[in-house]
């Protein structure tokens, strides 16, 4: 059984399928290529990228991944609160690779 256990350091693939043709992507632009930590395995759900086009949609593992907003925005804005901020994003397994 493959998958990412909570605590695993992962990277979001720096891929942009929407530039290659019609696509429906639920991985926000701001985390593409970013590193984060798996917080929780949320379950398995039908791939929205396929559902959006009425294609057969296999179930894919969904993870809650924690990111550091300071690393993502690389500007002064995220420094309020002295960096004590987090971003949690639901990411499907096909977008994650070990960091």
């Amino acid at each position, binding site marked *: 059984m493959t998958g990412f256990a909570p605590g695993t350091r992962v990277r979001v693939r720096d891929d942009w399928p929407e530039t290659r043709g019609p696509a429906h992507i639920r991985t926000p632009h701001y985390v593409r290529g970013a590193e984060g930590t798996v917080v929780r395995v949320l379950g398995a759900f039908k791939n929205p990228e396929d559902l959006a086009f009425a294609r057969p949609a296999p179930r894919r593992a969904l993870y809650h991944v924690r990111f550091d907003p300071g690393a993502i925005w690389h500007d002064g804005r995220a420094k*309020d*609160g002295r960096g*004590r901020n987090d*971003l949690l994003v639901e990411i499907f397994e096909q977008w994650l690779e070990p960091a």
Partner: protein
Amino acid sequence: MMLQETDGERLLVAVRRLLEAKGIASTAEIAERIAITDRASPGQGARMVARAWTDPDYRALMVEDGSKAAEMLGIPMRGMPPLGVLQNAPGLHHLVVCTLCSCYPRAVLGYPPYWFKSAGYRARAVRDPRGLIAEWGTVLPETTKVTVVDSTADYRWMVLPERPAGTEDWTETQLAAIVREGDMIGVTIPKRP
């Protein structure tokens, strides 16, 4: 094609007429669906929060399985997306957003507020959460961690806010009455009036 120019109201009338003729969606079904949706409201979420504040076992269930916790209070969740509950604590505050569209725990809280769906909210929540919630007058200590949760997939998220001081002997009904819509999104914090 003409879709770009056609007024939304006209499109709705035309589409409704066609779907009724085809037996797909009748006027009665639409009315019934509106009535069902109208039953959900922030008050349902407030009841869950008040129960969690007074019952540690319910709090644990709410955090572990939000949908089951909602069902326990008579909120229908069958066929609905799973409910995720984000528990605030001293030094930890959550803020919910859907940057890609407007995902919201509708089965519990009802329709999302107008501002939740706006470009300003969607852009700012993940980048300047403190500045954003300051628009509601919410100021957090600098030592508090703000965790912004972007609803990008199947879960729908609500915040379980902290119970205000000075409410120790309050009933659940009294507690539920002070929990507002914004408290369960994270733009405000429950206050004792």
